C-alpha cells in the first residue's frame, strides 16, 4: 500500500487519487499501481479540490471509520481508501457533497449520494443463533426493485448511461409506496463500495455489482445504435437489476441508510426533469385522445345533419298529420343539435386541444433549460479536467526540470483556474435561474389550465342549457301526436 504522500501532489490530492488518467477512459492506466480510479468525470471531488480542502485524502485513516463524516460539509465516500486499491482498480466513483446551500452544485445528470456514515446500530446483528434463524424465518421482503429505461446522457466520451431505478414497497420507512430515481453504473458500484467497508456489515455477504467493461462502455459512448451495444446495455441493465434485488433482499442491507438513499434520494433538478418529461408524455397522450374527440364530434355533427334531413323527408312522407308535424319538428331539433355539436367541437379544439398543444411545446422549452444547465455543468467539468491536465503538465515540467516552459505552464494554469471559477459561477447562476423559471412556469401553467378549463366547461354548460330548451320546446309537439 503506497503511502498517501506518494499520491499527494500539492494542489489536488483527490484529483491525483481519483484521476490519474483524467478524462482518459482507458482503464489501462489503472495498471499503474496506486492509481485506483479512472474516472472521466469525478466532478465533485475535483470541485472540492477547488473550493475546499478535501478531507478524504488528508485523512485516509478516517475512511475506515464509519464516523468519518464530520458534521460539517465534506462527507466522504468511504471508497476512496487505500485498501480498495486492488478491489476497485476499475472503479468509477463519484463523490458528492450534500450541502443544503449549494444544491445547485450537484451534477445535473448523475446521482448524488451523500453518504452518511452513521454508526450502524449494533442491533442489526442478532446475538444468538436462534435469533439469527428467527430473523431468517421472518423473511418478508416487501420491496421490489426494477432497473429499466437505459438512457444515454450526454455525448462523446463524457457520455454515460442513466438507468431508472424503480422501487415498489409497502415498508413504512420509505417515502412512498412507489418511486423511482435515475442512477448510473458508477452509482451502483459506489453503493457496493460503501457497503463493503462498513464495520456494521462485516461478515455479511454483500452482493456484487456487475463488472465494469471499458470496451463495452466505449462503444456505447461513441454510438449506441449497433446491436452489440444494445445487447451490452441490456445485459448490464439486467445484471444491475439482479444486483439490486439481492441487496434489498438482504435484511441488513435493506436497513442500511446508504441503500435507502440509493433507492430514494433525488436531486431537485433530477426530480423536476423527470416530472417535466412525464408530464410532456402524458400531455401528448391526452392530445391524441382530444384530437380523436374532436374528430368524433365532427362526425357526430355530420351524422346528425344528415339524419335531420332524412327525418324531415320521413315527416313529409308521413300521412298522419300530427305525427308528420312532430317528425318535422324533431328534424328541426336535430338540426339545432348539429349546431350545438359544431360549437362543442370548436370548443374541444380551440380551447382544449390547442391548450394541450401549446403546453407540449412549452414543456419542450422547459427541457431545453435543463439541457442548458447541463451544458453549463459539462463546460465546467471539462474546464476542471483541462485544469487538471495543465497542473499535471506543470508537475511533469518541474520533474523534467524545464524552467523555460514552466512559465507558460503556470500562465495557462492561472488562465484555466479563472475559467473554472467562472464556469462554476455560471453553472450556479443558471441553476438558480432554471429553478426560479420552472417554479414560475408551473404557477403560470396552473393558472392557464384552470382558466382555459373553466372556459371550456362554461361553453359546454351553455350548450347543455340550450339543448334543454330545444327538447323542452319539442315535448309538447310529441305529446300532441294523435
Amino acid at each position, binding site marked *: 500500500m503506497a503511502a498517501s504522500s506518494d499520491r499527494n501532489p500539492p494542489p489536488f490530492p483527490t484529483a491525483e487519487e481519483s484521476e490519474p488518467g483524467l478524462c482518459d477512459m482507458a482503464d489501462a492506466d489503472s495498471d499503474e499501481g496506486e492509481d485506483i480510479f479512472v474516472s472521466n468525470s469525478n466532478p465533485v471531488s475535483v470541485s472540492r479540490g477547488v473550493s475546499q480542502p478535501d478531507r478524504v485524502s488528508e485523512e485516509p485513516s478516517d475512511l475506515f471509520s464509519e464516523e468519518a463524516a464530520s458534521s460539517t460539509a465534506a462527507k466522504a465516500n468511504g471508497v476512496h481508501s487505500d485498501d480498495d486499491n486492488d478491489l476497485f482498480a476499475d472503479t468509477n466513483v463519484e463523490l458528492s457533497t450534500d450541502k443544503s446551500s449549494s444544491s445547485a452544485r450537484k451534477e445535473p445528470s448523475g446521482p448524488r449520494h451523500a453518504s452518511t456514515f452513521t454508526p450502524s446500530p449494533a442491533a442489526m446483528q442478532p446475538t444468538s443463533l436462534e435469533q439469527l434463524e428467527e430473523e431468517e424465518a421472518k423473511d418478508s421482503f416487501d420491496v421490489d426493485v426494477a432497473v429499466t429505461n437505459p438512457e444515454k446522457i450526454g455525448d462523446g466520451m463524457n457520455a454515460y448511461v442513466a438507468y431508472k431505478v424503480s422501487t415498489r414497497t409497502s415498508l413504512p420507512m420509505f417515502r412512498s409506496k412507489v418511486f423511482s430515481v435515475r442512477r448510473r453504473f458508477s452509482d451502483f458500484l459506489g453503493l457496493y463500495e460503501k457497503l463493503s467497508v462498513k464495520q456494521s456489515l462485516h461478515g455479511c455477504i454483500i452482493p456484487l455489482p456487475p463488472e465494469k467493461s471499458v470496451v463495452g462502455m466505449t462503444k456505447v459512448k461513441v454510438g449506441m445504435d449497433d446491436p452489440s451495444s444494445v445487447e451490452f446495455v441490456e445485459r448490464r441493465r439486467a445484471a444491475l437489476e439482479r444486483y439490486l434485488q439481492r441487496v434489498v433482499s438482504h435484511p441488513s442491507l435493506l436497513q442500511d441508510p446508504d441503500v435507502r438513499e440509493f433507492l430514494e434520494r433525488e436531486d431537485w433538478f433530477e426530480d423536476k426533469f423527470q416530472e417535466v418529461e412525464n*408530464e410532456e408524455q*402524458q*400531455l401528448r*397522450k*391526452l392530445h391524441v*385522445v*382530444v384530437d*380523436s*374527440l374532436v374528430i*368524433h*364530434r365532427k*362526425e*357526430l355533427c355530420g*351524422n*346528425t345533419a*344528415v*339524419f335531420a334531413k*332524412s*327525418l324531415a*323527408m*320521413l315527416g313529409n*312522407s*308521413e*300521412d*298522419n298529420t*300530427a*305525427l308528420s308535424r*312532430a*317528425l318535422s319538428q*324533431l328534424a328541426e331539433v336535430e338540426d339545432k343539435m348539429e349546431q350545438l355539436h359544431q360549437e362543442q367541437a370548436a370548443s374541444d379544439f380551440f380551447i382544449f386541444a390547442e391548450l394541450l398543444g401549446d403546453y407540449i411545446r412549452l414543456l419542450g422549452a422547459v427541457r431545453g433549460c435543463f439541457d442548458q444547465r447541463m451544458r453549463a455543468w459539462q463546460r465546467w467539468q471539462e474546464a476542471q479536467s483541462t485544469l487538471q491536465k495543465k497542473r499535471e503538465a506543470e508537475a511533469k515540467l518541474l520533474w523534467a526540470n524545464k524552467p523555460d516552459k514552466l512559465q507558460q505552464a503556470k500562465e495557462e494554469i492561472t488562465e484555466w483556474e479563472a475559467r473554472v471559477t467562472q464556469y462554476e459561477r455560471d453553472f450556479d447562476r443558471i441553476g438558480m435561474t432554471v429553478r426560479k423559471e420552472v417554479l414560475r412556469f408551473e404557477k403560470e401553467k*396552473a393558472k392557464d*389550465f*384552470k382558466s382555459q*378549463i*373553466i372556459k371550456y*366547461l*362554461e361553453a*359546454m*354548460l351553455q350548450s*347543455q*342549457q340550450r*339543448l*334543454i330548451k330545444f*327538447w*323542452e320546446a*319539442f*315535448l309538447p309537439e*310529441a*305529446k300532441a*301526436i*294523435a
Partner: protein
Amino acid sequence: MTSIDENSKEKLRSVSVDLNHDASLLIDIPDALCERDKVKFTVHTKTTLSSFQKPDFSVPRQHEDFIWLHDTLVETEDYAGLIIPPAPPKPDFDSPRDKMHKLGEGEATMTKEEYTKMKQELEAEYLAVFKKTVQVHEIFLQRLSSHPVLSKDRNFQIFLEYDQDLSVRRKNAKEMFGGFFKNMVKSADEVLISGVKEVDDFFEQEKTFLLDYYSKIKDSTAKAEKMTRAHKNIADDYIHISATLNSLAADDMTANKNLNIILSLQKVEGRVASDQDLKLTELLRYYMRDIQAAKDLLYRRARALADYENSNKALDKARLKSKDIPQAEEHQRQCLQKFDKLSESGKKELTSFKGRRVVAFRKNFIEMAELEIKHAKNSVALLQGCIELLKSN
C-alpha cells in the same frame, strides 16, 4: 344465465305498445342464456286457454326457431290478408366482440384503469345488445299472442308448448317451402310498383304511401344508427381522457376535479347514446321492418288481384272455346273470394297498423325528449358545480 329484471324490461318494451295485456295468453322471455354466438331464450307462457296442455310452462328456444315460426306463418295461405309481425333479427354481437378484440390487442398501451373502464363499457354494450335481442324476440311473440287470428295458429302453439327440440320440425318445414317465398319477395316491390291496376283507392293510396315511407324510414334508420355510433365514440373518448388525466392528476387537486367531471360527463354521454339508441334508432328500425311486413301484405293482395284477373281472362277464353266453363267459373269465383277476403282483412290490418304506429312513435318521442332533458339537466348541474369549485379556488 343472464336474466332481465322486470323493471328494465318495462323500459325496453317501448317500440310496440299495448301488448301482453290479455290474460288468456301471456307470453314473456324471462331468461336468456348466451353461449358464444348462440342465444337460448326461455319462452314462458301463462294461459287460461284449454287448447294448451298446461296453464304455466316454459320452453327453451333458439333464434332459428323464431324464424321458422315466422316463415310458416308467412307461408300459410289463410294469413295472406294479415300483416305478419316481422321476424326478429339475428342476434348480432359483432360490434362489441370486435371492440373487445381490439381492446385486447391494445391492452399493453393503456393503463390498468383505462383498460378496466373500457372493458366495463364493452361489457355494458354487450349486455345492451343482449337485452335488445331478448326484447325484439319477445315482442314478436307478444304481437302474435295479441292478434285475434294468429294467436290461434297451430304452429304458434307448438312453438310455445313443444318441449323437445324444434330443429327437426324446422328442417321439415324448410324442405317443404325451401326458398320459395324468399325468392318471391325479392320481386315483390316490382310487382307492387308496376303490377296490376289498382281498383281500390284505399289500397292505391296505401301502396304509394308504404313504398315511399319504407324507403324513407330505411334511410332514417341507417342514419340514426350512424348518429348513435358517433355518440358512443365520444363516450369512449371521454374514458380515455379521464384515464390520461388520472395519470397526470396524481398530486394535482385541480386536475382531480377535472378528472371527476370528465368521468361524470362520460357517463352522461354514454347514457344519452344508449337512450337515443333505444328510443329513436330501435323505434325506426322496428317500424321499418313492420312496414316491410305491411308491404308484403300488399304484395300478396296484388298477386291475388293478378290471379283474379288471370282467372277472368281464362274464363273468357273458356267461354269462347265453350270448354271447361264450370271449372273456369269456379276458379274465377275462388280467386275473387280470396281477393275480397284479402282486401277486407288487409284494410283492417293496415288501418290498425297506422294507429299502432302513431301511438308507438308518440310514446317513444315523448320518452326520448324527457330523457334528453333529464340528462342535460344532470350535465348542467355537474358543470355548474365544477365551475364553481374551480373558480372558488
